[in-house]
Structure formats: structure tokens, C-alpha cells
């Protein structure tokens, strides 16, 4: 039998045909390669969270190889001299070992921590983008809810994570968490005792937090993120209004090759930035805090940034204790309101917002076009109110540090926070609302009258006027220019945007190609004979 010659060039084609025979993937694959994504810088904020999450998984798996989630008491005998001979939990000792004994362990720990902070920050910024542009409206309410849940699950992941080293700072945080659970009416002491396996701190909490942190919560995050991305894929991304863009189409780039390549590059950049931060910026130097001891705390004990708003709300809460005089008497401690009720309200309000807004506006249509924040002043102002509320709480979470650094009375800072929490949001609402209206008005003005050229002209009767460059072509009848309709997208407001500037010369340090001859500025006002100069020489108004 004659052996057939192996044709190398045809091999991939044959292999592909073989795969398609068995799995029929050619059509779905083509659809995937061709899927169109709209492009705008603000659509990439969620990606930062996704990429940080991947870095978290990678570095986190590394850390589990060395971390010992146990509260057994050991005597430290590692290379960090100041703590040698100190009794501490095995969890803290192994965290010290990751920092000092494991080659490259410290950078992994720091990258993990920085990636967690970036993850939460990206979630918040992404959420603000979605809120302020109205991307949460029908049909995307489900994804908005999943996104809000991702914040809170991420919050839990962060808290369980930074409690694991069992150092002086995180132990204090854990102590506060146990007090928060204790404050829940009726079931508080049972919940706390069940979670901690007895009275605080017990001997089991680190192991329980560990399995929550490395298995349960990540599994939940992966599930939620998958559904989140799946829905973005299924429902297709929103887009900004613009030429050719309608509610029924997507204008952008096909996923392959350019869009996917840009995403890949962006991932590498996020990864690189986290690596730089993990190497160059120290974070959570647990060896300086010492092991957790119930009687030791230092001033400026702050949690990670995304927990600080709860710390702030706890600090601002007045000492309002509710006594219930039945039997021996029962108590609702003041700690309950800012740490259990407030987050509950925040979760409820944020998840319900899309439905509240739709109901309020009686708007039950599908929206795939985004809105500029200025075009929906009420929503933008509500968002600004929420941001102001959050900022006051977060700043109050650091009010002892602010008081210390700026030599302000601590009590004054607390009172400023209490009052600020009440008046800052309404002020933010009012100011933002007016700003939105002002921006809207300016857009309409430019559309009607044109762009300011910066050229002042003196009329024959002595008046000075600024020359405007109209945006629409001159009307055939009459001498004016027609006003343009606002389309929900950026209105050019500078002459440069209209091409008044010559084309840019390419090349960073020296021109790489001969610059094209700059055209005469189209923004130049209609040519007229130059008015007599001597008229304005005196400075005195002429009568």
C-alpha cells in the first residue's frame, strides 16, 4: 500500500474540519468572533475589577500553600528578631513566615492585598459609571442587582481575608465584628456564639474564616461574575448616542481581533500595576502590629478603605440605647443601627433603585442608549447625594487621624461628621442639580448660536460682540443659522474641536513624517474689511 504523503499546510484545515464534524462549532464560533462591542473608556472600569479578581485568585492560591489557619498557640522562633519568643497563634506565625521565610512570599502577600483594594475600588467606580449613565435601566436591572451583590460579597471576602493573619489590627477588627453580631436583637448572642464557637475569640474562628475566604466566598464570586458577564454578553453592551447609533443596534468593533487584543493588553497592564504596587508600596506590615491581644490597641486603627464607611457610621452614631422594660429588661445597643440596619438599608435601596426610578418615571421601555449625567439632573443629583453621604462616613472613619494631623479637636470632628451627614447630601443634591441644568443650557446655547471664537468685534455703533462660529450650515433663506437638535452626545465647545487647529504632527520627540500643510482655519470669522484701529485707541467711550 502506498503511504499517503502528509501535507503540512492542509493539516490545520483538516483538523478544524474534524472538530466541526463532531461538535458543529463553525457557526457559533463565527458569531463569537464577529460579535460587536461598543468602545468607550468608561466601559473598561468593570474590567479592572475582573482582572484584579484573576490576580487575586493567582496570588491567593500561592498564599494558601504556606498559611496555617489555626489559632493554636505557638512561640515564634523565626527570623524577625523583635518578635522572637512571643507567644502567638499559628495563623499569625505562618503569616510572618510568608513575609520573612518564604522566598518572594512578601510580594505575593502585598500583591494580594493591593489587588483586593483595587478590586473593590474598581467595583465602586464601575457602579458609579453604570448609575450615572443610566445603564441599569431595563433590560439590565438583573445585572445591576448582581453588581451590587458583588460589592457586598467582595466586602465579605476582604473582611474575612484581612482577618486571617490574626495580627493586632485584624484581631481588633474581628472583636468589633463580634460586637456587631452581638448587637442584633433577640438572636445576637446566639449568632455570635455559634460563629465563634463560644465566647470571643474562641479557638475556631480563623479556620472558619479561612474556608469561607478561600472556598465559599470565591465560589460565590466566580458564580456571580460569570452570570454578570454572561448577561452582558447576552443582552449586548449599552452604547453612547451618536451618529448611526440607535436603541436597536450596536456600533463598535468586532470582538476579534482588535477588541480582544486591547482587552488582553489591558489585563497585562492591570497585572503589571498591581505587581509594581505589591513590590514598591508597603501594605499591612503585620510584623509591626504584633499578635492580637485583647488588651492592646493603638490609635489610628483603621480598616481597609471599603470598610471605613461603616467605621465612620459607628463613630458618628449618638449613644442612643433602647431599653425594653419587659421581665429582666432587654437592650438594643446603639451599635446595632449604624452597622446592621444601615447596610441593610443601603443594600435594599441600591438593589431596588432601577425599579423605583422606572416606577417614578413610568418608563417601562428597554433602553440600550446611555444618558449623559447632565441630561438626567434628578438621578445625577441623587447619585451625588449618595456619594456625599458615603464620603462623610468614610472621612469620619478616619476622623481621629484627621484630628491628629490637622490639630482639630476629636469631638469637633465627630460633631462635624454628624452634622455633615445630615446637610452634605442635600447640598450635594442642590448643587449637582443646578450644575446639570447649567451644562444642559450651555449645550443648547452652543447648538443655537455656535462656538465662542474668542474674537471680539466692535460694531459700527460702538458695541462689542464676540464672534460665534455657527455649527449648522447657513440657511438658504434669511441670514441666520438654524439651531441644531441636541442628540444626547458631546457638543463641540472649542474651535479646536471643529478643526481650527492644524493637523497634529506625528512623532513624540521629532516629526516622523512631513506635516501636512495646515488648512486655513475654518473657524475664522467671515471675512470683512478690518475695522479702523484708531477707534479704540483712546479708551474713553465715544459718544
Amino acid at each position, binding site marked *: 500500500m502506498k503511504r499517503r504523503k502528509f501535507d503540512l499546510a492542509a493539516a490545520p484545515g483538516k483538523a478544524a474540519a474534524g472538530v466541526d464534524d463532531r461538535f458543529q462549532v463553525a457557526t457559533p464560533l*463565527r458569531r463569537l468572533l*464577529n*460579535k*460587536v462591542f461598543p468602545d468607550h473608556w468608561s466601559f473598561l472600569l468593570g474590567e479592572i475589577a475582573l482582572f484584579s479578581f484573576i490576580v487575586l485568585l493567582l496570588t491567593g492560591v500561592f498564599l494558601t500553600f504556606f498559611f496555617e489557619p489555626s489559632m493554636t498557640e505557638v512561640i515564634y522562633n523565626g527570623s524577625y528578631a523583635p518578635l522572637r519568643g512571643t507567644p502567638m497563634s499559628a495563623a499569625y506565625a505562618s503569616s510572618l513566615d510568608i513575609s*520573612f521565610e518564604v*522566598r*518572594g512570599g*512578601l510580594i505575593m502577600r*502585598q500583591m494580594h492585598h493591593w489587588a483586593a483594594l483595587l478590586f473593590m475600588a474598581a467595583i465602586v467606580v464601575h457602579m458609579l459609571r453604570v448609575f450615572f449613565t443610566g445603564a441599569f435601566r431595563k433590560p439590565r436591572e438583573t445585572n445591576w442587582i448582581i453588581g451590587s451583590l458583588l460589592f457586598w460579597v467582595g466586602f465579605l471576602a476582604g473582611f474575612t481575608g484581612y482577618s486571617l493573619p490574626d495580627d493586632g489590627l485584624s*484581631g481588633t477588627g474581628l*472583636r*468589633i465584628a*463580634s*460586637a456587631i453580631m452581638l*448587637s442584633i436583637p433577640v438572636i445576637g*448572642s446566639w449568632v455570635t*456564639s455559634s*460563629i465563634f*464557637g*463560644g465566647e470571643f*475569640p474562641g479557638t475556631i474562628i480563623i479556620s472558619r474564616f479561612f474556608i469561607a475566604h478561600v472556598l465559599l466566598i470565591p465560589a460565590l464570586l466566580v458564580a456571580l461574575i460569570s452570570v454578570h458577564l454572561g448577561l452582558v454578553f447576552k443582552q449586548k453592551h449599552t452604547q453612547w448616542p451618536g451618529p*448611526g447609533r440607535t436603541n*436597536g*443596534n*450596536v*456600533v*463598535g*468593533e*468586532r470582538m476579534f481581533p*482588535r477588541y480582544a*487584543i*486591547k482587552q*488582553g*493588553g*489591558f*489585563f*497585562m497592564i492591570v*497585572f*503589571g500595576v498591581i*505587581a509594581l504596587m505589591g513590590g*514598591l508600596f508597603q501594605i499591612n506590615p503585620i510584623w509591626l502590629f504584633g499578635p492580637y491581644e*485583647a*488588651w492592646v*490597641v493603638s*490609635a*489610628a*486603627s483603621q480598616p481597609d478603605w471599603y470598610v471605613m464607611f461603616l467605621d465612620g457610621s459607628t*463613630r458618628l452614631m449618638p*449613644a442612643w*440605647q433602647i431599653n425594653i422594660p419587659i421581665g*429582666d429588661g*432587654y*437592650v*438594643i*445597643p*446603639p*451599635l446595632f443601627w*449604624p452597622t446592621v440596619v444601615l447596610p441593610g438599608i443601603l443594600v435594599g435601596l441600591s438593589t431596588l433603585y432601577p425599579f423605583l426610578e422606572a416606577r417614578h418615571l413610568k418608563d417601562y421601555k428597554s433602553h440600550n442608549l446611555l444618558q449623559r449625567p447632565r441630561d438626567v439632573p434628578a438621578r445625577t443629583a441623587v447619585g451625588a447625594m449618595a456619594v456625599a453621604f458615603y464620603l462623610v462616613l468614610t472621612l469620619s472613619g478616619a476622623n481621629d487621624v484627621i484630628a491628629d494631623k490637622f490639630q482639630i479637636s*476629636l469631638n469637633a470632628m465627630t460633631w462635624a461628621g454628624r452634622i455633615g451627614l445630615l446637610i452634605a447630601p442635600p447640598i450635594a443634591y442642590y448643587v449637582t442639580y443646578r450644575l446639570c441644568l447649567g451644562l444642559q443650557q450651555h449645550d443648547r446655547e452652543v447648538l443655537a448660536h455656535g462656538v465662542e471664537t474668542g474674537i471680539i468685534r466692535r460694531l459700527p455703533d460702538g458695541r462689542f460682540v464676540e464672534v460665534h462660529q455657527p455649527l449648522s450650515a447657513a440657511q438658504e433663506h434669511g441670514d441666520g443659522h438654524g439651531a441644531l437638535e441636541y442628540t444626547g452626545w458631546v457638543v463641540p465647545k472649542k474651535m479646536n474641536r471643529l478643526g481650527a487647529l492644524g493637523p497634529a504632527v506625528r512623532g513624540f520627540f521629532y516629526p516622523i*513624517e512631513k506635516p501636512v500643510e495646515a488648512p486655513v482655519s475654518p473657524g475664522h470669522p467671515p471675512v470683512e474689511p478690518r475695522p479702523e484701529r484708531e477707534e479704540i485707541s483712546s479708551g474713553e467711550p465715544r459718544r
Partner: protein
Amino acid sequence: MSTHTEHQAQQGREPLDVNTPGLTRFDIVREGARRDDIEIVHYEPQVVSGSKAERRLVRLVAWLFLLSGLAATAFLVVYIWWPWEYAPGRGSDKWYTPLLGLTLGLSLLGIGFGILTWGKKLLPKEVSIQDRHEGAVSPDDRSITGQTMLYMADELGVKRRPLLGISLLAGLAPVGAVAAAPLVGGLISNPHKNNQMFTTGFAPAEGGQKVRLVREDGRPVRPSDISAGGQLTVFPGIEHGISNRHADSPTLLIHLRDEDAQKSRQANERVGHGDYMWGNYAAYSKICTHAGCPASLYEQQTNRLLCPCHQSQFLITDNARPVFGPASRRLPQLPIEVDSEGFFVAKSDFTETVGPDFWERP
């Protein structure tokens, strides 16, 4: 609306025969896109092939990739050969983590910017329009799916045979509870076992033996050990008394100056704690009644104790009453005296509940 009509036009479009000779590869790509209701309306190379600009970009991308390789090699060199083990005062190990971060970061950024430049600058720019097909829901399909599901319910015949449904519910509900039972039953722990929420390490032992106040190193405390205006954190002198196993026990022993002690004694008498102090010495729980942090910042001049976690302030000369911040309950006072050997002991346990507040605190 214009794109919508365009889409309608595509529906009636003759599909292109991709086997037609003379078709370019791009023609086929565009035909594929059209079959997915995507119109590539603009496709324009950003660089002229063979131009100076293209060569320059190619060089830039190549440099970035090479830089990345260089940084990665540097990472490996540092990782393997740099003296990294911690030694106090030596110093070179201090640079280990920053160098790793710098080299790793540069190598990743090199790849990242290289790929980005490749994709953004060298690939043609395009604008494609895809139809969303959102209005394409057919009422018929909805109706068919709904009827199919109802048909399934009909076939099961739950309506005709109600016993099945009821027995299924009655049978399965306990099965569901079985799934929850081990979790709840295993985790649940009675908070009032051994009266643990209301006792601390200072409770006298079985024989009525009073517990000594000891320092962090375990030595008992004499009155002369603290000068007037000073304070000391003390622990119960029992086994494991100075550890997190007795996280509620740390106590602040304060030696008040004469006039402050006078005020403090009067305040004590008002609440029936007349004999809780010994001389000018008073002992208060260090565990904040708000969230359980140690209230450890004592201001001598004002006799205020501040908790650094949430800034609750307690006035020691007035039974440690909360005077500012979120705490709503005074710090419990430990009744103290001096035993026959001259060391401080606790007369009894705290007479109020120590630590953060909870529902059933009497």
C-alpha cells in the same frame, strides 16, 4: 431608524456564494459578518504598509516585547541570587521585594503596552453595526413555550390527583430540613453555657479564694507600684489569665490623685459601689462597652478614658460614665482590696456585664 430598514434590506439579501472564484478573504469575512446581521461600515488601515510610520511602530512594539523579556530575566536573576533572607540591620534584603515588584511590573507592562500598541495602532480601525434583535421576540414562541409547560403540568396531573402534590410537599419538607439540620445543629453554641457572658477571670475560685490582680508578665501588684495619677493594665492571676482566652478580663487599675479619688468615692457611693475602691485606687474594665476594643488611652489631666476605635470617652471620676461618643453604658467597676501579703485582689467578679452590649443583658 435608518439602520433598522437597512437590516430589513439584509433579510431579503441574496446570500453571497463564498465559493465564487475571485473573492478576497475580506469579502468572505464581510459576508460572514452579514450573515450575523453585522455590517462593517468602515474599515481603514491606520498605517500605510511599508511606510516609515509602520516601521517605527513595529520597532516600538518589538522593543516593548524585548524590554519585557529583559525585565522578566532580571526578575529571575533577582529572585534566585539576591540575598533575600531577613537579617536585622543588614539591609540588602530590604530591596528584595521592591526589586521583584519593579522587574515583574515592568515585564508585565512591557507585554501589555506592546500588545496594546499592536492592536490599537497597527490593526485597521473599523466601525461595525450589529443588530440587537431585541424586538424579535415572537408572541407565538412565547405562547408555545408557555403551553408546553402547562401541558407538562397537565400530564403530571397534580390538579386531578391532589394527594400526590400534598404528599410530595409533606414528604419533602422534612428532607429539606435534614439538609439544614447538621449545619445548624453542628454550629449552634449556647452563649450562656457556664454563664460565660456574665463572668470573667476575676470570679473567685471554688473555695472562695480571691483572685489577684497581676501584670502582663504575671507578677502581682502592690499599691506602691503605681504612682498617683498612673495606671496599669492588670489581669486575673489565674491560669491563662493573661491571654485571649480571658478576652473580657483585662482591667485598668488607676491610682487617682487625692481630690479625684474623693470625687470618685462620692460617685461610687451614689450608685451603691461605696466599697469598690481601695484607698485612692479604682479598677475599671478595659473592654469598651460599645464594641469591645480596649479603651486604653487615659488622659491624666481630665481623668477621661478614650477608646481609640470609635472615640467613646468615659469619665473615670464619675463611675466611668460615657461622656462622649457612641458608647451608652459605663465601664463596669471591679471591687478591689489588698490581701494580707499586700497585693491587690478582686473582692468579687465584676458586678455588671463586661464588654459590648447585647439583647438579653439585664
